[in-house]
């Protein structure tokens, strides 16, 4: 191929790659925007759950204060009636009667631990206070059992609170990163590509215009020459000789 052809090919290839880059950039921009929206939704869901948990924590803590007060008072009552049973209780401890299980809960992709308590085995203090203070002791057991339940609930609420807090921070950071860094970057790249393409197009256009002008000039010049030669030679009419013409002109835009 001629030199001009090669240059043309190269130009075409660059053009092709630029527009392919543009398509790619457009796709990436779309992807980034979708990603940002999804993350925003996740952040909103997490924040909602976070606020719910906060409210529950406040409720539970106030209830806890009440319950502990009542439980401590019922301990005083039981001690009044039954005497000092603390040593009996301590001596009879063998296995835990109330145990805690950990389960997983999923909120918008974040796993939160949830604790629940369960009873195991019978009440080993059934007969304590048989002869004195049995009623007060059973009331005491109930009050403290309720306190333990509340404590377990509070514990799972607080761990969820902390985990959710972390997750929300991370998600928000990602959302902000996409919104303020990635998308502008892609935007800038895209505008650059577009301006480059525009410029190339304008270059192309200008080049063509220039070629056309030059051709026109050339044509006028040759016509003038032919007319001169013809005038010199006189009235001999000759067809054009294909072999003597030197260059094959580009057939462009005639």
């Amino acid at each position, binding site marked *: 191929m001629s030199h001009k052809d090669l240059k043309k090919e190269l130009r075409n290839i660059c053009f092709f790659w630029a527009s392919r880059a543009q398509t790619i950039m457009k796709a990436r921009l779309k992807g980034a925007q979708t990603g940002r929206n999804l993350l925003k939704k996740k952040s909103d869901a997490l924040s909602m759950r976070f606020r719910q948990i906060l409210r529950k924590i406040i409720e539970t803590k106030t209830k806890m204060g009440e319950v502990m*007060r009542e439980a*401590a*008072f019922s301990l*005083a*009552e039981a*001690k*009044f*009636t039954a005497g000092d049973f603390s*040593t*009996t209780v301590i*001596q*009879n401890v*063998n296995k835990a009667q109330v145990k805690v299980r950990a389960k997983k809960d999923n909120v918008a992709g974040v796993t939160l631990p949830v604790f629940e308590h369960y009873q195991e085995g019978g009440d080993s203090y*059934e*007969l*304590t*206070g*048989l*002869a*004195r*203070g*049995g*009623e*007060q002791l059973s009331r005491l057991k109930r009050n403290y059992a309720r306190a333990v339940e509340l404590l377990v609930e509070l514990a799972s609420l607080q761990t969820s609170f902390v985990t959710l807090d972390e997750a929300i921070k991370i998600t928000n950071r990602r959302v902000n990163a996409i919104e303020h860094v990635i998308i502008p970057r892609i935007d800038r790249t895209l505008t650059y590509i577009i301006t480059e393409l525009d410029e190339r197009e304008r270059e192309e256009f200008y080049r063509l215009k220039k070629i056309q002008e030059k051709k026109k000039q050339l044509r006028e010049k040759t016509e003038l020459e032919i007319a001169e030669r013809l005038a010199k030679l006189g009235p001999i009419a000759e067809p054009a000789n294909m072999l003597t013409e030197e260059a094959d002109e580009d057939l462009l835009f005639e």
Partner: protein
Amino acid sequence: MTNTLSFNIDHGYLEGLVRGMKAGILTQQDYNNLAQCDTLEDMKLHLQCSDYGNLLSSAEDLTVSVVDSKLRENLVAEFNCLRSNALPLLSTFLDYITYSYMIDNVVLLITGALKQRDVAELLPRCHPLGAFDQMAAVGIARTPTELYSTILVDTPLAQFFQDAVSECNLDEMEAEILRNKLYKAYLESFHSFCQNIGGATKDIMCPILEFEADRRAFIITVNSFGTDLSAADRSALYPTCGKLHPEGLQQLGKADDHQQVKAVAHCYPDYKTVFDDPEPGSEYKTLEDRFFEQEVKLNTLAFLQQFHFGVFYSYIKLKEQESRNIVWIAECVTQRQKSKINNYIPIFH
């Protein structure tokens, strides 16, 4: 064996001492003052005006448990003063009083030995009134039967173990069941001892002990509803020296709910009032509270007669109730639960 004329020769000094100490028991006015306090420091000030004097002033860090232990120390000191000066019959009587604390200590040590706990930890937690010489040696035994055969046989409690040991294996017995069986044997033994003394002692002590026996029977029945304790087992725990024996105890053994227990109580005029519903408008009192009140009433009657041993028993019991009252008021004050502060048992109106 003791008659009115010669009582004072051996026991007159101690009876005088006890009556003097009884005069220092807190009155209603004192309780009113204590109930109005806002902190333990205020209570300490009020107690300084009473017979307790500077009991609490040495404590740097005043908490309810400190108050409790100081009151107990005081009672133990008074008791030891009486016991060390007592002559034969009174000394046995005072020993009988300590046996109930000894039973609690022994049950504590047995459960501790079973769980292989360090005896040195358990000893400070034993009630000082129930101390016996072989307590420190308890750590050697590994099972209750061993404990019994090597150590407890030499203590005064050996007689109460007869019943428990003969029936079933000591190792498998629950601590509470053992405690109640020992207590039953102790009550019955104490009752027959008082009966043997005769005279005014018998007239005062026997109603008190009978009341104690019946009260235990009622409370054990009521508390055993809803537990694994079968009717037959619980019948074995009823002391037989009370007024309920034999028909009342039989019926209690068959009772399945609170209504039936109430029905049994209605047959006996003394216990009818305890189980009756309170009149509308008066404060709700638990069953235990009403039994406490009845006990306090019987104990105060002891001081109306002279030349008998009942005053010593009643004094100890009333002093204990007073300690419980003071601790209760202290707890209400520290926990700021003034609504129930008047739930103590008043002793002398």
